[in-house]
């Protein structure tokens, strides 16, 4: 199925990537080339095949419930583009 301009804008919105209006046609074309190519998978009968969720045959281990040293706040904040008084700063989200 073809990815149209509206679909590109929808995906971009979901992916939180700004796409300029004039770029949508080119992007739609590129994405369609890739999706048309992967379409060949539909020729394989996969009825009754278990989907692979892990390539190694292990059960997810549980860790013991112990207290560990927490990461320090100043370490966590040290790479942030904008901080204030020990907090990350974001644009205002509540009125």
């Amino acid at each position, binding site marked *: 199925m073809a990815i149209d301009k509206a679909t590109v804008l929808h995906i971009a919105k979901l992916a939180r990537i*700004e796409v300029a209006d004039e770029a949508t046609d080119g992007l739609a074309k590129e*994405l369609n080339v890739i999706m048309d190519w992967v379409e060949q998978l539909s020729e394989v009968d996969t009825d009754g095949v278990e989907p692979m969720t892990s390539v190694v045959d292990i059960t997810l281990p549980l860790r013991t419930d112990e207290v560990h040293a927490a990461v320090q706040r100043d370490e966590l904040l040290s790479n942030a583009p904008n901080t204030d008084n020990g907090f990350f700063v974001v644009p205002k989200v509540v009125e």
Partner: protein
Amino acid sequence: MSALTALTLTSARAALDKREFSARELTDAHIEAAEAARPLNALVAETFDLARERADAADKRLTAGEGGLLEGMPLAIKDLYCTKGVHSAACSHILDGFKPTYESTVTANLWREGAVMMGKANMDEFAMGSANVTSYYGNVINPWQRQGDNKPLVPGGSSGGSAAAVAARIALAATGTDTGGSIRQPAAFCGLVGLKPTYGRCSRWGIIAFASSLDQAGPLTRSVEDAALMLQVMAGHDAKDSTSVNTPVPDYRAELNGDVQGLRVGVPAEYRLDDMPEEIEALWRRGIDWYKDAGAEIIDISLPHTKYSLPTYYIVAPAECSSNLARYDGVRYGLREADDDLTHMYERSRAKGFGPEVQRRIMIGTYVLSAGYYDAYYLKAQKLRTLIARDFSQAFEKVDVVLTPTAPSAAFAIGEKMDDPIAMYLNDVFTVPASMAGLPGISVPAGLSSEGLPLGLQLLGQPFDEARLLNAARFMEIAAEFTATPSGLGGGTS
């Protein structure tokens, strides 16, 4: 090329024990080589001061008789590995200025054994690429050139800077990561040994994530023995990575005798592509003959779902990348484009911070995971993955290793295959299937193309059977007698 940079990792380490030269002399020789090879753009961050410090510390430990397995060994580290306080940006604009406050488990293992970091190696942005042309820090140039032609060639990717660094004698070995061929293909393009271990063999903790069910750390080296030594140190269980497998790490160097008598070598019919260049086909036949002549048993096998591996990969990997890269939001680290609106701030930061190939894969991944398409694409791909893995497990009932070409061509020029994403994706046609099945694979330089460029053959093994895989690779190394060295730019590598 200085005598010190021409050594293998193993021989340099042995020479340090005999005090034939100091760790500092070894590191200084590599710094000099790295400075001369700057036009290759293999390193995006040089850590020469740190390297000298660590080399001096190594000399002290060696004098005290305390040297580790990699004591004083100059290494290049792919920019995907988080190294404490040092540039770690996955070669993406979005991680501008990021300096981790922690060390990845694999690099910590290397430093624990005394290794010396030369710098962070260039790579395709977030490891998405097969030619190292998507890095925010610019292309890497392969130290190899075609005979009589100085057109710059790609080193392969995504671990292109790692491969170029080792080929240009900037480092004795390098770390890479392999999601669909990102160690094995650049190793083939640069005349190196490249090992992708079994998924779960090395910890992924502290390695910037691309596709978590596929990513695996591994070494690029100039010999099979060097690959075994690097894996020895890199491998091991890590409680911080829940997919790291708690199985003992054998001594990978103990049985590297190259004896392949009775080894069952599988040759898969489906890897014979219609449009494969004759010289790749011929190299593969030669490889088969080497094993046959040494007493191995050659067995024709079938891996019927091979042709679906690449399209399956291009659903699974983008899906996982779209999830993993959701964390780059301009709030906690990296690039931020200011805006009064939170959502617009995210959208503008991500549009500016991610390059075109990364954006394309995030969009594909978002699409195949979105409502209404999940079953048709993502679930379908997961089922295909089961079938691809089953092909291999059935083949491994009859064979010990599988022998294939590593890549469908030698290194190509920068600018070629750049207009069509799928043409670029096809570079990984021989490496992706084993990634989908989580199997270990190794590329060994096996010959030269008609243009004088290195070509690799790939061996695939059973899960956690790296010891046998390495020994089969050691045999190929002996049989191939590959001694050519790159002639190209900058590195003083005549």
